[in-house]
Every structure is written in C-alpha cells, then in structure tokens.
C-alpha cells in the first residue's frame, strides 16, 4: 500500500527548475536513497512528497492514491528536517507527542503517553523526555526528530540528511540503527543525503540526482560499479575517481587508448570493449579509474612510472597522489606502504577496471545499452 510514484513530476521556482520531469516508483517497504550534491533538488523532492510544496506539473501517487492536491496532514507521511526542526518551546516529550495530539489522531492522553514512552525506549532517550531541544546534543536532537516521525506510524518516512550534522562516531552508530529500524518497521523510506557512503550502505536502491534530474536509479552495487555517466562515477566514491583524457587509435581488432598529455599511459582494449569504442566513433575518450583499482608495483616491474606528489598514510589504507607526466592520479595504497615525496613509483592498472566516458556528453559508453 505504501508506495510512492512520481509521474513526470516537475517543480519550478520561477523560471528555474528544481526538479525536472521526475519519474520514479518507490516500492512498498523499500529504503530508497536519493543522493546528489547540494542544490540537486533532493530536499525539494521530499517536500513535494510531503505536500509542503505544490507540483508545477506531473502526478504524484502515494499508496496508489493521487496525492497532488492532498494537504500534508492527509498524506500520512512523516518527515525529518536537516535542521531537525524541533519545536524550541516544547519539551522532548511534547515534541514527540505533537503528531499524536493532531486533530486526526483521536487518542486519549494515556494512549499518547504510552506511545511516547514506547518510542523513547526504542531510541534510548527515556531520560531526556523533560528536556528542551536547546539542552540536547546533535545526536540527541536527531533521535527526537526521528522519534517524532516514528511515533505516529506513518506509511512513509521522508528523511532529509538526517546524519549530516552529527559527529562522525554518532553518525556511524545512527546509520546502523536507522538501517535496523527501517527493516524492523518495514516502512517505505525516502532518504536524502549527499554522502555516498550513506547512500551505498543504506539503500535498497539509490537514485542519483543532479540539477533536478534523476540520472541513474539502481541497487547500490550497480550504481557504483556501472555508473551511467561521469557525474555518477565522480559523485559516488571517495577518493574521487581519476579521469584522464585519452586519444583513441584502432589497430585491427584492438583499440589503443593513449594519454593525451602523456603517451606512455596506454591501455589496450580487446574484443567486445574494443567494439564498443569503435562503434562510438570518438577520436577522444575520457577514462575513469577508481583509486583502489590502481596497484603499486616495484619501479622495475611497473608498466607505468610516476613521481610521488604527496602521501597521506592512514591506518586502513594510505592515499597517494602521483604525478604521472602531467596527470595527477590518486591511488589507494596498502596500510603498510610508505612513500616519500619525489620518490619514483611504479603502478599497474588492469584495462578491465577502466571506465570509458564520452568526453562530450559524459556518458559511459558501455552503459548506454
């Protein structure tokens, strides 16, 4: 019952489109994550769903019912805000109870109290009920906001960047809790974030949004490993994917890709992939290589040799910036590896780990059917 369907939904702010022709179907009990940079239209999408903003055109169905002209109160959705939007003049208890006091609920005071306590127990904040929002930490505020959303048992959760303002340790913990809660409650959830780790670790499916356009929708592993275009590849993944402009040369059945700035950087594609490049008929390509797909090798054995620009050791894996004849490449290294600035270093990349993008459109050649 609790599905959300967008049918060519467009939202204009004056002449500027905030959401462009969005068509999307979110399934019952699904944890759907919308990820994108700031200004991509993520929050607008949530507000359209909640009924806080009117649609400019298109249709929105909630639970199979046309919701275009329903008021927020009629939609039975709950939303948390990036700013938490806790009512500063109410205690935690009253904040959480607010939805239950609404005219549509018809609950007795004792029912309300027991529901509030149940939620407070669940989120581990029974001792905070008498406090005011200003007396809470960021993580606690977030819990209250979640509690207020959960207490009325809505058919849909809309979560707007719920973890962006809590510190790293709490974020990790809350992410796990959120995941578990959603699976327990089985409530359809639309979760908005700019953080790709959250997107990939929480979502049943992920939708990538940029400039109001939905670029790609799919399970996390698919969106990550088969990005439809350069933007998706760049946005999902930290450190960012390495992008290199290359010149294409065909040789019999194979295709040679050579760095435009440094011809020593070469990859040979064979078989089907070579065919794709030939069909695309581009003299130039932009290739993408994930930093963890580059492996360091001894200088003698390494096919490619560069010079260390900077090295950041870290406990799990180091991050190395290598100057390779005019290209600055980011490489994730083993935890035990150590490098000095200026040191020569060899590295290897398997041609299979190279993404091929059209330099004009940014499209992934292999993803375009």
């Amino acid at each position, binding site marked *: 019952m609790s599905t959300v369907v967008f049918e060519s939904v467009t939202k204009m702010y004056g002449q500027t489109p905030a959401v462009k022709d969005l068509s999307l179907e979110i399934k019952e009990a699904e944890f759907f994550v919308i990820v994108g940079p700031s200004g991509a239209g993520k929050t607008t999408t949530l*507000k359209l769903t909640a009924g*806080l903003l009117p649609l400019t055109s298109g249709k929105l169905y909630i639970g199979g019912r046309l919701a275009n002209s329903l008021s*927020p*109160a009629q939609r039975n959705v709950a*939303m948390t805000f990036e*700013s938490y*939007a806790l*009512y500063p*003049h109410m205690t935690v208890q009253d904040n959480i109870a607010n939805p239950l006091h609404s*005219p549509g609920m018809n609950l007795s005071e004792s029912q309300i109290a027991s529901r509030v306590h149940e939620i407070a127990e669940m989120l581990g904040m029974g001792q905070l009920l008498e406090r005011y929002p200003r007396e809470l930490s960021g993580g606690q505020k977030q819990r209250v906001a979640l509690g207020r959303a959960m207490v009325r048992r809505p058919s849909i959760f809309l979560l707007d960047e719920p973890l962006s303002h809590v510190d790293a340790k709490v974020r990790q913990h809350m992410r796990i809790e959120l995941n578990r809660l959603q699976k327990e409650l089985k409530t359809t959830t639309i979760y908005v974030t700019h953080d790709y780790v959250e997107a990939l670790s929480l979502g049943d499916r992920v939708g990538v949004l940029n400039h109001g356009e939905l670029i790609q929708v799919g399970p996390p592993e698919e969106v990550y490993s088969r990005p439809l275009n350069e933007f998706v590849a760049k946005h999902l993944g930290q450190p960012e994917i390495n992008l290199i402009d290359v010149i294409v040369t065909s040789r019999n059945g194979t295709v040679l890709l050579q760095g435009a700035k440094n011809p020593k950087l070469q990859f040979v594609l064979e078989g089907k992939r070579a065919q794709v490049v030939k069909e695309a008929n581009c003299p130039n390509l932009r290739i993408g290589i994930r930093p963890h797909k580059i492996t360091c090798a001894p200088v003698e054995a390494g096919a490619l040799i560069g010079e260390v620009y900077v090295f950041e050791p870290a406990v799990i894996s180091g991050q190395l910036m290598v100057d390779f004849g005019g290209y600055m490449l980011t490489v994730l290294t083993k935890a035990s590896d150590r490098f000095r600035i200026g040191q020569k270093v060899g590295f290897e990349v398997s041609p299979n780990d190279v993404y091929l993008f059209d330099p004009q459109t940014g499209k992934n050649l292999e993803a375009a059917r």
Partner: protein
Amino acid sequence: MKHAKGEPLLLKIVLDALLVVMFLAILFPFIWIVLAAFKTEADILAWPPKFRFPPTLDHFRNILSGKTYELGKASLQSNIDIVRFFFNSLIVSCGSIIVSLLVGVPAAYAIARFKFRGRENIAFTLLSFRFAPALMVIIPLYIIFRKMGLNNTYIGLIWVYQLITLPMIVWILRGYIEDISPELEEACLIDGYSQWRTFWRITLPLARPGVVAAGLLAFIYAWNNFLFGLILGGSAVQPITLGALQFISTAYVRYGDIAATIVLAFLPALILSIYSQRHLVRGLSFGAVKA
C-alpha cells in the same frame, strides 16, 4: 592605564562629555517638570529658579480631587476631572493595542510568510503612516469624522490610533516572524495540523516576545499621542496628554497642576519602559535592523 580597543584617552573624554551633554539636554525638561509638580506656584515662578524648596503635594491633591484650587486667597471651583482623562487614555490606548494586535499579528504573519502580489507595497504603505506627518491628514480626517459622527467617541479615537500602533506592530512582528524557521511550521503541518492550528501551536508561542515588545512599544506611543485627541476628541474622550491643557485658561495658567498632570501622564509609560526594557530593546532592534 590601558583603554579598550586602544582609543586615545582624549577622544574618549570628548565622547563621554558629549554623551553627558546630550543626556542632560534630554533629561532637563523631564527633571524640570517633576520639580515643578512639587513646588508651590510662587516657587515655580521664582527667578532665579529654585532647586531647593519645601515640597508640596497640593497640586496632586488638586488635580485628583478636581475640586478646589488656591490662588492667593481666592478659592476657585474647578470641574476638571484628571482621573477621567487618565481613564480615557487607558481605554483608548488599550483599545488601540487590542485592535492592532488582532489585525496586526495575522497581517505580519502574512507579510512575513506568504509571497503575494503587492506584498511589499502593502508593507510599505503601512510603514508610510509612521513617517507621514499626522498634520497632513488631520483636517480631512476631522471632516470625515464629523460626517460619520465619530468625533468625540472612543471608537473614533481607537480607529485613528491605528495609524500609530498598527504599522509598529506589523513591522516589528514581521521581523520577528521572519526569524522563526519556516521548517518548524512545515514540521507541524506534516505532524497533521492545519495551517491555522500550526500558527497557534508553533508560530504564535515563538513570536510571543515580539508580540509583547511590539505591544508595549505601540502602547507607549499611543499613550503619548497628543494631536489626534486634540482635534478629533472632545473632553469626554480626550487622553491625559490633553488633560494638562485644561489648566490653561484666559484667566490664569495653573503651572503646578499642569506639571502634576504631566507627571501622572508619563508615569505609566515610564514604568512600562523600565519594566520591559529588555523586551523593548530587542523589539526595537528586530524591527529596525531587518529591512
């Protein structure tokens, strides 16, 4: 000795001296009236002015009883009822504030929250009532009031006082409401409340300090008004600011009673200002800083 922010000592002295001069200039008439209220008629008119004198409460007794007045040896009857003027002030000022709040709070909310055609024009028109001189409109208003039978009525004065109180309340509250995050209201809408209930549940409680500040400030301005009562009100409804005028007649000017009336007149405003100083400063700066 070190001075804050490294201001030269001389500059600091000059600035402080200027402040003292300004302070005295503003405070002098005030002190003078208070002193006059406690002087005998002879002491008031004495030259050089007396700063040490035996205080008397006669003037207060006179104006509050509204009966007798000693002028030399003669005892004159007076039917000037200052208490009544005082109550007129109270009725007109409170009435104006109540009407202004009823109209102004929703108006400020609409101007702060909703985008509609002519929003800024309406807001500016309201503000323009504050800087247009009242003298400009007083004659036409007088004619209109005569025709409508509104002169010398409380309703008429309360109505015309809206020119003073309404713009102030709308503009101060607009700034206040704009400072309240719209997301709080959105959250309440999603919680299942209508726009109207959300206003009562979230916006109004959060704007309460602003409502108090704007109300107090508007009250003080209304209380101090002189012109509207003078032209549009008769003695039955005139405020206390005009009460003092009653002691000036062709036969004599009763300076002491005037002074005592003025002291009584500014007492409520003074007490309110001191009591609500914190609110007022916030209210004023909210209204002033926000464009």
